[in-house]
C-alpha cells in the first residue's frame, strides 16, 4: 500500500462525487440549508402565558405571584384599552375584574368576571383560560383544598430556561448530514462495482486492503468534515469541542461502515438510494426523540445512532462532559467497529 496510490483513489472519489450532480447539489445545499434552518428557528422558548388585565390595584398586587408560575400579566388602564389589545393581538386573553372583587369575595358572593378571548386562540386554550381565571380568583379568595400535592421533579429542572428547539434539532441535522454521506458513498461504490471500475482498480498494484483504506479514509474524512462544519457554524463546538469532535469522528466511522454494507447490497444508484433512505429513517428516530421527547421508550437504544445523538444532546444542551457520556462513546465505538468490519467483509465478497 503506498500513499500516492491511496491519495490518487481518494482524489478520484472526490471528483466522482462532485461529478454526480445530485450528490454535489445535496452536499452543498444541505449544509447551507441546515445552517439556515438552525438560524431561522428562535433561539429562546417563550414559556409564558400572557394575560391582559383591567383590575383594581389590590387585585393586580395579589396576582404578582402568578408571574413566577409562567403567567405574564399585562395591565391596561381601561376596559376599552384591554379589549383593543385583545383585538390587535397584543395579548391573547383579557380579564376584566370588577372593582368590588375582593370585598365581594370576602362576603362570600360570586362576582362576575369578564374574559375576552382572541378569535385567533385555539379552541383548547379558549376552554382553558376561564378555568385559569377561576383558580386565580380562588387563590385570591384564599379558598384552599385539603389536598397535599407532593411533587418530585424528574431530571434536570429546566423550567424558565428550556432548551430551544434549534438546539434540540442539532443532533437530527448532524444525523442527516452523515446519512447523506452514506447515500453518496454507497451509490458511488455500487456504481463503481456495476461499471467495473473497482475490478479495473484491483488489477493495478492497488491491493484490496489499499482500496478499502482509501474508500474508508474518503468516507470517514468527508463525513467528518461536513458534520464538523455544521457544528462549527451552529455553535455546536463551543462546549467540550474535543469531546464533540471525537463523537463525530466515531460516528463518521460508523456511517462509513453502513455505507459499505449498503453498497454491497445494492446493484445500482436507485437501489442504493432506497436502501439508504430506509437506513436514514431508522437512524433518524433517536434524533426525532430528542426533538419530540416521549416519542419512544427504551427500545430506541438498539438503534446505533442513539449513542451519538444522546451524547451530542447531553454535551450541547446539558453541559455533560467526558465522565457523563463515556459509556455512549464506548458503545458507539463498538457499533462503528462492527459496522466497518461487516461492511468490509460484505464488499470484499461482492468484489470476488
Amino acid at each position: 500500500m503506498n500513499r500516492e496510490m491511496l491519495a490518487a483513489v481518494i482524489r478520484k472519489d472526490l471528483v466522482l462525487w462532485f461529478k454526480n450532480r445530485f450528490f454535489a447539489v445535496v452536499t452543498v445545499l444541505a449544509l447551507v440549508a441546515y445552517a439556515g434552518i438552525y438560524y431561522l428557528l428562535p433561539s429562546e422558548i417563550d414559556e409564558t402565558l400572557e394575560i391582559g388585565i383591567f383590575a383594581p390595584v389590590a387585585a393586580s398586587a395579589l396576582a404578582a405571584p402568578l408571574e413566577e408560575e409562567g403567567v405574564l400579566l399585562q395591565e391596561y388602564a381601561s376596559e376599552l384599552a384591554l379589549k383593543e389589545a385583545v383585538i390587535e393581538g397584543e395579548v391573547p386573553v383579557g380579564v376584566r375584574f370588577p372593582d368590588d372583587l375582593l370585598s365581594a369575595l370576602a362576603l362570600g358572593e360570586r362576582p362576575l368576571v369578564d374574559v375576552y378571548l382572541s378569535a385567533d386562540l385555539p379552541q383548547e386554550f379558549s376552554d382553558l383560560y376561564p378555568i385559569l381565571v377561576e383558580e386565580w380568583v380562588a387563590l385570591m379568595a384564599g379558598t384552599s383544598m385539603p389536598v397535599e400535592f407532593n411533587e418530585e421533579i424528574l431530571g434536570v429542572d429546566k423550567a424558565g430556561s428550556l432548551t430551544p428547539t434549534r438546539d434540540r434539532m442539532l443532533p437530527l441535522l448532524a444525523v442527516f448530514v452523515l446519512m447523506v454521506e452514506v447515500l453518496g458513498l454507497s451509490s458511488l461504490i455500487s456504481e463503481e462495482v456495476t461499471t467495473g471500475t473497482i475490478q479495473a482498480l484491483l488489477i493495478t498494484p492497488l491491493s484490496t486492503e489499499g482500496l478499502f483504506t482509501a474508500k474508508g479514509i474518503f468516507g470517514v474524512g468527508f463525513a467528518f468534515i461536513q458534520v464538523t462544519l455544521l457544528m462549527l457554524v451552529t455553535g455546536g463546538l463551543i462546549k467540550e469541542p474535543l469531546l464533540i469532535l471525537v463523537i463525530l469522528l466515531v460516528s463518521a466511522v460508523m456511517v462509513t461502515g453502513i455505507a459499505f454494507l449498503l453498497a454491497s447490497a445494492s446493484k445500482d444508484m436507485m437501489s442504493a438510494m432506497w436502501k439508504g433512505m430506509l437506513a436514514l429513517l431508522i437512524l433518524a428516530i433517536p434524533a426525532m426523540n430528542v426533538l419530540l421527547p416521549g416519542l419512544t421508550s427504551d427500545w430506541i437504544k438498539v438503534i446505533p445512532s442513539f449513542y451519538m445523538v444522546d451524547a451530542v444532546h447531553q454535551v450541547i444542551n446539558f453541559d455533560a462532559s467526558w465522565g457523563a457520556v463515556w459509556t455512549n462513546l464506548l458503545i458507539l465505538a463498538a457499533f462503528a467497529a462492527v459496522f466497518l468490519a461487516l461492511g468490509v467483509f460484505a464488499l470484499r465478497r461482492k468484489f470476488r
Partner: protein
Amino acid sequence: MSIRRIGVLLWKELSKGSRNFIFIMALVVPVVISLLLALLFGTFFSDRAKLGIVDEGSSQIPARAAAMEALIVREFDNASELKEAVSRGAVDIGMVLPEGFDDRVAAREPAEVAGYIWGESGLDSRAILVTSILALFRDVAGYEPPVEIVTTTLGEAQALPWEDRLLPFILLMAVMIGGVMVPAASLAQERQDRTLVALTITPTTLGDVLTAKGIIGVLVAATMSVVTLALNRAFGGDAVLLIGALVLGSIMAVIFGLLLGVMTKDINTLFGTIKAMGLILYAPAFIFMFPEIPQWIARLFPTYYIIGPVIEITQMGAGLEEVLPELIILVVLILALIAVTAYAARRKSEAAA
C-alpha cells in the same frame, strides 16, 4: 400516434414500472406522511399539556381530565410506569390518585397525591396542568367556582391549525411525486438504459411513449391526491369540481415531469435538477404554512395553481365561480408546458437522429 401502441406501452408501464422505487414511493409517501402528521399533531406537536394519571381507586378525575380539550391525558397502571413516562417526557406531569380520593376530598378530609414533574416541561405547561388539576379536584369535591365567568370572543381572525397549514404541502408532495417524479424518472431511466432508443426505432413514436407515461403519471397523481385529502379528512365541497381541479393539477405536474424527463440525460441529473428546484416548486405550500406572509406571493409560483383551487374548494367551500380564474390560469400553464415539451421532444428526436 397509435392508440393501440399507447395501450401496449401503458400496460408495460403498469406491469413493469409499478415495481420501480419511485412508483412505490409515490404510493407510499403521501399515506405515510399523512398518518405520521396525524400522529404527531394529535399528540407530539400539539401545544396541549400532557397529564399522566395512575388511579389506584375508581376516581372520576381521569374521565373528567380526558374531557378537557386543553389536556392530553394518558392513564398508567402503576406509579413506576408513570414515573418512567414522566422522566422521558412522554407526559409533563404525572399524579397518583390514592384509593378513595374522591370520597376524601368530598368529605373535606385531607388527602395526599404523589406528583411527578418532567424537568424539561415548560412553565406554561406546568401552569396549565397545575391549574387544571386544581380545577378537577374542586370539581370532584363539589366546590362551587368563586366567580362567575362571562367569556366573549373578540376579533374576526380564526386560528389556522397546523394540520390545515400543512395540508397544501402534503397534497403538493403527492402530486409532485406521482405527477413529476414517476414519468420523469421512468423516462430518464429508459434513456439511461437505452430502451428509449430501442423503442423509437420501432413504429412507436416518442409521442406514444410520452402519452403512455403521462397517463400513468396523471392516474397516480390524481389518485394519490384524492387519497391524501381523504386521509387528512379534507375531501369536501363540490366533489366534481374538486376532482376536476385535481386532475388538471395532476396534468400540469405530469407535463412538467415529462419535460424534465426529456431534458435530463440520466437519473442523477434528474434528481439533482428536482432537488435544486425544490424550493421553487414547494414555495406556495411553505407560504400557506405561515399566514403572516402576504398570501398573494404564492400566486407568483406556477405550482400554486395546482393546490390553490383544491384548498379553496375543500377548506373554504369555494364553488366554480370563485376558482374559475385560477383554473383558467392552470389550463393556460398546461397548454404552454405542452408546447414547450413538444418542442423539446422534437429537438431531442432530431438530435438523436
